[in-house]
């Protein structure tokens, strides 16, 4: 009990030294957590942006469609399926596509594209492509056979607004079919490959050319939590064994890679940070022991036994860390919660981000388990950081210690 009191008094006897240790641990904890939250928020935003543009959370096809890529392998009885899916608690939005691979031909060039027939009202709820229209407008049925194309494709085919574009493909009977479309809008998403390989037309127009109205080749779903999409996909797959249900992590492995590698990097970085903190604390405490050689020697000389000296230094280090970590955690939690609410606007100094398809508004977020992990790691670091200087203090020889200076 006396040791506890003595240690506490000792750390406030030299407030600058204690301040440095507490400051380092506090800032380390706070900044480490904030950076993890910031990076997590940024990756999440990136994934969300990408999914909202072109993948959706879950896609449903006929299994044969995925192999053959022909529109005739469509989903049977789509209306009743959509109705059933709408009653699932986790499904928030659904849109239906007809889709065919074909050739886009302009007067200048020819290019292979994927042609998707969409219902504009439904599509807007799931895909954000309509916000990426840089020239012209989104699809409207006022014009006959309207089509929107990506900037990349427009350049390749030398297309401008109101240009004519002939789409050539095989219909559901494998007969060659073609239609002349009018470019009403040009979009630029964050993914230039997507912009090069996709054109969108009104579903009714495409279905007419494919010779089957109400054709549904693909259902795109949005669910309440994109992280849970793989689990939801499994649930749906069991319910509909005749269809192929895929979540975004199957469809876009590069996004899953971004998600996972982010986690790895963060833990390695946190490890480095904690190592730096631990060794920093050890160094400072070692110096402190050296500075207090005379004092510690005196304590030993007047009869304080070695285990108590050891205990006292140990307790002092603990105090420093256990004052700093909770404050750091609290501060981090406060900052993360606050910035998650307001968002951090990076637009001022990040032209690259926008071009890369990252939202410039970042909402940091971190789940509770990370706070727990970090507290745990800090606790272990604290024990390690405390032992060595205390052991060094133990090694002091009282007579020599007092004689010094």
């Amino acid at each position: 009990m006396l040791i506890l009191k003595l240690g506490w008094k000792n750390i406030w006897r030299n407030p600058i030294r204690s301040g440095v240790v507490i400051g380092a641990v506090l800032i380390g904890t706070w900044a480490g957590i904030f950076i993890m939250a910031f990076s997590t928020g940024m990756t999440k935003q990136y994934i969300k942006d990408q999914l909202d543009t072109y993948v959706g959370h879950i896609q449903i096809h006929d299994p044969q469609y995925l192999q053959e890529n022909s529109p005739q392998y469509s989903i049977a009885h789509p209306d009743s399926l959509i109705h059933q899916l709408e009653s699932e608690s986790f499904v928030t939005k659904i849109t239906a596509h007809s889709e065919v691979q074909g050739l886009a031909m302009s007067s200048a060039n020819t290019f292979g594209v994927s042609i998707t027939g969409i219902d504009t009202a439904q599509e807007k709820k799931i895909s954000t492509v309509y916000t990426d229209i840089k020239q012209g407008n989104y699809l409207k049925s006022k014009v006959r056979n309207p089509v929107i194309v990506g900037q990349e494709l427009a350049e390749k085919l030398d297309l401008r607004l109101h240009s004519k574009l002939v789409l050539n493909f095989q219909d559901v009977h494998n007969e060659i079919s073609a239609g002349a479309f009018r470019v009403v809008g040009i979009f630029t998403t964050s993914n230039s490959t997507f912009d090069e390989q996709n054109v969108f037309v009104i579903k009714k127009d495409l279905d007419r050319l494919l010779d089957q109205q109400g054709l549904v080749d693909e259902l795109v779903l949005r669910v309440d939590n994109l992280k849970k999409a793989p689990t939801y996909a499994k649930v749906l797959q069991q319910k509909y064994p005749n269809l192929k249900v895929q979540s975004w992590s199957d469809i876009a492995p590069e996004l899953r890679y971004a998600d996972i590698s982010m986690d790895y990097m963060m833990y390695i970085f946190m490890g480095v940070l904690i190592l730096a903190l631990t060794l920093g604390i050890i160094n400072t405490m070692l110096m402190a022991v050296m500075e207090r050689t005379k004092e510690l020697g005196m304590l030993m000389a007047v009869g304080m036994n070695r285990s108590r000296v050891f205990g006292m230094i140990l307790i002092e280090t603990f105090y420093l860390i256990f004052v700093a970590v909770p404050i750091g955690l609290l501060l981090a939690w406060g900052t993360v919660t606050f910035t998650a609410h307001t968002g951090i606007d990076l637009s001022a100094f990040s032209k690259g981000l926008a071009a890369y398809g990252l939202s410039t508004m970042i909402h940091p977020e971190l789940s509770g388990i990370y706070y727990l992990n970090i507290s745990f790691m800090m606790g272990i670091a604290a024990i390690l950081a405390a032992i060595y200087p205390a052991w060094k203090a133990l090694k002091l020889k009282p007579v020599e210690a007092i004689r010094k200076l």
Partner: protein
Amino acid sequence: MFFLKLAWRNIWRNKRRTLITTFSIVLAVVLSSFTRSMQLGTYDQMIQNSAGMYTGYLQVHQKGYWDKPTLDNSFAFSDSLLDTIASVDHVTHVIPRLRSYALAAGQKKSRAAMIIGFDPQAEQSLSNPKKYLVDGTYITTDSSRSVLVTEGLANYLNLAVGDSLVLLGQGYHGISAADVYPIQGIVKYGIQEMNRAMVFLPIGKAQHFFGTFGRLTAAAITLDDAHAVNDVQKEIQSKLDGPYEVMTWRQLMPELVQAIEADSGSGMIILLVLYIVVGFGIMGTVLMMTAERQYELGVMVSIGTSRFRLGSMLLLELILLALLGIILGSIGSLPLVWYFHLNPIHFTGEAALAMRQYGMDPVLPFSTDPAIIWGQAMIILGLTAVVSIYPMWHAHKLNPIKAMRD
């Protein structure tokens, strides 16, 4: 001069103190080098995965090809041109390509495909279809009439090895091009876009098909040192006379550059936090070092050493320690980053699966560029200089009587 000597002696007077302070500086250099090497290694991997997989570090085209990639913008390729490029330092391979699009058809279906006229030997050093062959055999001779197709296309057209592939398209200056080729092999790339619809045709046959005899759309270049890319670009540009454009991967893949730049921003923030933490570590030891020497400093002031000189002496000591620390730290960092370069951290489980699917090795590579370590060492030196303000300020404020009494 006298104070330099004094500072030098002071350093060695208390070896343990020196050791601890130096260690905190060494640690700062090692940890920041480690972190930066990891960050930059990841970018090298991204570049290697793109430039080294298909594009090459440099490409030579006819001027204007990149803006308008059509066969009409192809260029005549000769052995002398090849020799000129190959003779430039750092160039390891020159990979000739003729690239265009055509309709690829099987029995019932057809799809637009990218047709790549390739040199079966040279291409092995870049996109290496041989490595990704999943069925059939590789084309070994340039005179072969056979083709390789990607798995995505083969599945779509319902074709297997031995079947015939019909190509139908437009050749040089609008002539029509049509022919039938037997499929000799099927390749499967990890990157979906590459796997979608590509046909590899020996370059001689491709030139025949498109009517572009002796012409290429691009000569891709691989290097033995990725960092030399700008010098090589300049040298090739100056050696080639004629309407050519020489482009680096930075110009060929601006999206990759943007991706790296976007990520580099958050990387810098991470480093900044690390600097703060190691800075506090150094600060702690310096603070204690000053406190420990209260008595000694008090004596010096009272026997008439000017405070300015005292401060300079402390500064000198710290600079000497910092130099020692960054030299040792740089030496210590080298084997560390080399170790992780040769034995990179492996991803496991689902992460590894996702990376393989994406066509990447599931590892976290480290860059061994010595410039990284050097740069970090300089930053830590600067950091120590900032920290050294404290002992100087302390010398300025020191009350000798109080200092000696303590």
